[in-house]
């Protein structure tokens, strides 16, 4: 069997582009608007999100045969909330400034539908290892969108990437201006809209 045909590969690769959680499933839009003004916050948010969704999938999938059906949502929420709080604690300990910029949006990973969605639709019906890969893929798919949007917004809005000035000073002197609109939330809407269009145009079913 070819590597690309295995279930594991599909679980990991499908959410990257073909079944991207933001583009196709339209989940996690809120935080995609809020944390994409700068690349740095987008990358950290993507990593935190990937960690949470991968491990929540892993844990929930391992528990799937022992959790009583009537309280499975409660157990899922306990797992997800614990992981999010853990991510928040780690940020506060090691990346304090970025954690402060992300403010409530780390905590709001709990309400990010991608996490609950993958737990309900995938982890409950699949073994732990595949679920973990699916979580990694979904988190990475979300991160790709975040980083792409942040790249465009930071480049056009602040003329920088990762905080380093990339638009040369000479260009500013020649009359170039940063697009202030890119720093506002509506800009992210428009970029995400354009990216969805591009994705649909490139990948035909």
């Amino acid at each position, binding site marked *: 069997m070819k590597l690309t045909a295995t279930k594991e590969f599909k679980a990991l690769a499908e959410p990257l582009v073909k079944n991207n959680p933001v583009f196709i499933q339209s989940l996690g839009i809120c935080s995609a608007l*809020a944390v994409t003004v700068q690349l740095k916050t987008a990358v950290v948010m993507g990593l935190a999100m990937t960690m949470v969704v991968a491990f929540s999938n892993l844990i929930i999938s391992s528990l799937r045969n*022992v*959790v*009583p059906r009537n309280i499975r949502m409660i*157990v899922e929420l*306990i797992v997800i909330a614990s992981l999010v709080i*853990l991510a928040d*604690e780690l940020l506060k300990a090691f990346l304090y*400034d970025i954690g402060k910029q992300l403010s409530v949006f780390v905590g709001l990973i709990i309400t990010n539908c991608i996490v609950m969605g993958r737990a309900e639709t995938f982890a409950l019906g699949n073994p732990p290892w595949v679920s973990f890969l699916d979580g990694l893929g979904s988190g990475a798919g979300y991160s790709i969108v975040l980083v792409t949007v942040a790249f465009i917004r930071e480049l056009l809005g602040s003329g920088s990437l990762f905080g380093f000035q990339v638009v040369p000073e000479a260009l500013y002197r020649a009359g170039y201006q940063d697009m202030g609109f890119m720093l506002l*939330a509506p800009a992210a809407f428009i970029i995400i809209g354009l990216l969805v269009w591009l994705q649909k145009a490139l990948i035909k079913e």
Partner: protein
Amino acid sequence: MSDTLKSIWFAAITALLASLLLTGASSGLKEYRLANIKLDNQKNLLKSVGLIHPDVTYTGEDIEKLYRENIKSYRAGEAGDLVPETAAAPQGSPLFLYVKDNQTRAYILPVHSRGLWGKIDGYLAVENDGRTVSGFTVYNHGETPGLGGEIEKAWFQNNFRGKKIVDQNDRFVSVGIIKGKVADQVAAENQANFVDGISGATLTGRFLSEGLRDTLLAYEKVSAKFREGQINLNTAAAEKTSSP
């Protein structure tokens, strides 16, 4: 065992395990977290007197060094006298002096204001003339990101620089946040006492205005001494020797 009982047990054990894990993580990382909070606090204090450049990245040691070299902790007595902070039973309200070349350049007041959703903590620095605001920073708040949360942004805080806490007759009036733009809303002679508000955050502005006013009022005797030119580092040092 009935299904219901089993469910309850399962939920209880899961919750217990999760809380144990989180308690462990929280107390294990506490040291790092507290160190970060302290640094952030010091950074904001330095920022309020313009010692932090927005385009420069500072390491923890840079900030500690800047803080050690420039900032002195004091306590303000009831008559507005300044006593250096000592470990033994500090009395009076805390404040900080920005001292450079043996000259007090500014004094920094800790602000603990009410906000719309929770407390707002920050620093308000006033220059040594006792009239001009040197800077305002926020290190802790619970306001809505994008609305009241803008109080932590540079565009808002920069508006405080150069504002006056006294009116044209040198009477104390505090510095306030208005609804809308100062240029449109306030008579020309009072514009020095107000900063632009944040649209969508009228209440945050109102609470913070009150908080700033309360803070400045509490330290008004200190400000008055600065206005009269009665405080320089030497008198503060002299008070240190005369106080028991």
